[in-house]
């Protein structure tokens, strides 16, 4: 059996949250009372906008969203990431996510998380799930402060598929034997390049695609 991996989208696939929640957590842990209040208010006010952008274009959404990190220090972000994992991500993990990953590991797959979130926010989760690799967006830091820009290419949509293809080529894995898991039709490219795609708690469009292509549909709880 050739070497293979299972690639997991994170938001909505393994955890019932999305990066807005993650950012909200950062906003609320700004450090000063005024800063916290200000960012929380801005975040709350922006939520409908985020929602609308997410539906229209995930790439624009991500770029727009990352700008909110501008000015935060790296060490602060890393510290808050650990707390954020305990407070936000871990409780939001689907109960069956760990089983799903354990089943993939038993089948001889490497475990790879592929997410549009920022790498430092996802690292504690990757560690907790025992992932072998984390493919995520990287924030640019200048002088220890986040610039609000992400080092290209931004991991989303078709770029997720490219990142997976590169990873497989680099590690000598057979794409045809690899598994992909996502909840969103925006990850169609990522699902389409692996030999064994699966829709997890899919949105309506992905559910239709999964039915059309006879992909298995999982409902995690």
């Amino acid at each position, binding site marked *: *059996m050739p070497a293979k991996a299972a690639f997991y989208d994170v938001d909505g696939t393994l955890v019932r949250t999305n990066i807005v929640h993650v950012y909200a957590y950062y906003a609320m842990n700004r450090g000063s009372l005024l800063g916290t209040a200000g960012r929380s208010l801005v975040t709350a006010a922006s939520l409908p906008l985020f929602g609308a952008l997410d539906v229209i274009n995930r790439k624009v959404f991500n770029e727009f969203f990352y700008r909110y990190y501008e000015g935060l220090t790296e060490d602060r972000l890393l510290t808050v990431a650990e707390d954020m994992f305990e407070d936000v991500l871990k409780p939001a993990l689907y109960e*069956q996510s760990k089983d799903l990953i354990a*089943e993939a590991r038993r*089948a001889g797959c490497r475990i790879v998380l592929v997410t549009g979130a920022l790498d430092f926010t996802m690292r504690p989760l990757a560690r907790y799930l025992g992932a072998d690799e984390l493919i995520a967006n990287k924030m640019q830091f200048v002088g220890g402060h986040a610039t609000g820009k992400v080092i290209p290419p931004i991991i989303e949509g078709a770029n997720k598929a490219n990142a997976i293809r590169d990873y497989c080529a680099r590690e000598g894995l057979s794409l045809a034997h690899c598994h992909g898991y996502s909840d969103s039709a925006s990850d169609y490219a990522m699902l389409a390049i692996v030999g064994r795609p699966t829709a997890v708690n899919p949105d309506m469009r992905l559910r239709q695609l999964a039915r059309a292509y006879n992909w*298995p549909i*999982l409902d995690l709880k």
Partner: protein
Amino acid sequence: MRPIKTLQKLYDEESQVVITEKGSPPRVLFSGENFLQEDLPVGTRVIFPRPPMAGVPNVKAAIRWAINHPENMEPLHALMRPGMKLTCVIDDISVPLPPMVTPDVRQTILEVVLELAADSGVDDIHLVIANALHRRMTEAEMRRMVGEKIHNAYYPDRYYNHDAEDPDGIVEMERTLHNEVVALNRRVAESDLVVYVNVNFVPMNGGHKSMGTGVTNYASLRAHHNPKTIRDSDSYMEPKTSALYKSNSRIGTVIDKNLKVFHIETTLNNRMFGAPLEFLGKKEEDYTEADRLRLQALLFGLKHAPRAAARKIFNAVPAPYEVTGVFAGATEPVHAKTLEMSWKQYSVPVEGQSDIVIFPIPFISPYSVNSILNPLLLQVMGLGYFFNLNRGVPLVKKGGVLILLHPAFDEFDPVQHPSYIEFFNRLLPETRDSMKLEHKYEREFAENPSYVHLYRKGNAYHGVHPFYMWYWGENGRQHVGKVIVAGAENNHVPELLGWDRTDTLTEAIEEARGFMGRSATISLLRIAPTLLADVKL
């Protein structure tokens, strides 16, 4: 004086075999969720099921008598002691077909056994459904099977489906002399006493197969659920000619050596249809005027009902089976008695094989309860189960033609049969060779984490199950020269399965005669209810 022809007819009726004459009535035949009324060529041999045997008058009394007078074991009450770990392993929803009217015989057995356990001070009791790699039963199905009272007391912590993929839930015992893996559900393996609650629907069920396949895992099932074992089995229904049965016996012997297993096996009669469909179990010659009216009403209703609605209605009508025997004790002597009773009900003696054999395929199979009989299940019904309803000599001659009556629709249930969809659409276009499929793809499907997850947490058949369905037809595939599916509503399903298709049965018979010659002999297995052709050469 009566003409000889009439006397012949009377004789044939008594023997459950009717030779079609010029004035014979059309036959009412299953074709999926519908019925066809077909005139058969003169000389066609129609093989009918035996009439239902009388059930035991008091099922609970029969169960009590059996567990108090078991075969080669002490009575059940003598095996129980306070504080012991007791596990009841129960046959799943794949038998009987259709599910029986409530109370299901499993409920009746459990009521007796659990009462006895309570009286004996046994509190640590689990009820495990022996679903092997079948789908998990839903809560509603589980409730229906054991009744409200038991369900409420035991579900979900102490009444659950076996999980063949639980990494901590399986224990491996020593291997058989043939190096077959013997793996068992951990709770079952660690019990002081196991009571197996069986419903015997065909002779293939029961005996060592109960424990050997019901509460085991993929590694153990691979020992006999493979194309080679299937090819080495002349019939799945006759232990003497079944390599499958022999492998199960080896595995079961290891289990019996390590565990105390008390089997309670039950046989049912073949009263598949209650009023108002009772006439479907009769010969058409015996239909009354009222039966004919009921038939017309049924045909009219089915013609105008969408298939999904017809399916729902059929699935909602349980069968009024009656218990004909209860046997308890050690595996082998119990099963010998079960088989004897089973043959009494199902066996129909038949002289010689036929060139062409017609199987009407009904709406249900062991793997499509409350679901859809998809193309792979149609295949397993025709070439697997019906072909094997014999004692080692198939009804159809080697190289002969099988005609299946079914619409062969391209419909799959993504909840119950997700891996079937991929098997049918991805693998069959590449190859129909069982050996190649086993070698190249079986493990990939078995280990696919998505299919494993759907099996463990959803209600899906295990990823490897479509392979077993394909292997199950291997015996028939190797034997027959041609398969024609009459009434297939599309071309691609028969083509992918390697079959011919025709619109009608008449056309199928014409094509079969073209293949086998004008003087080809024809038999029709007028199933359901269940029957087994006991062919004498």
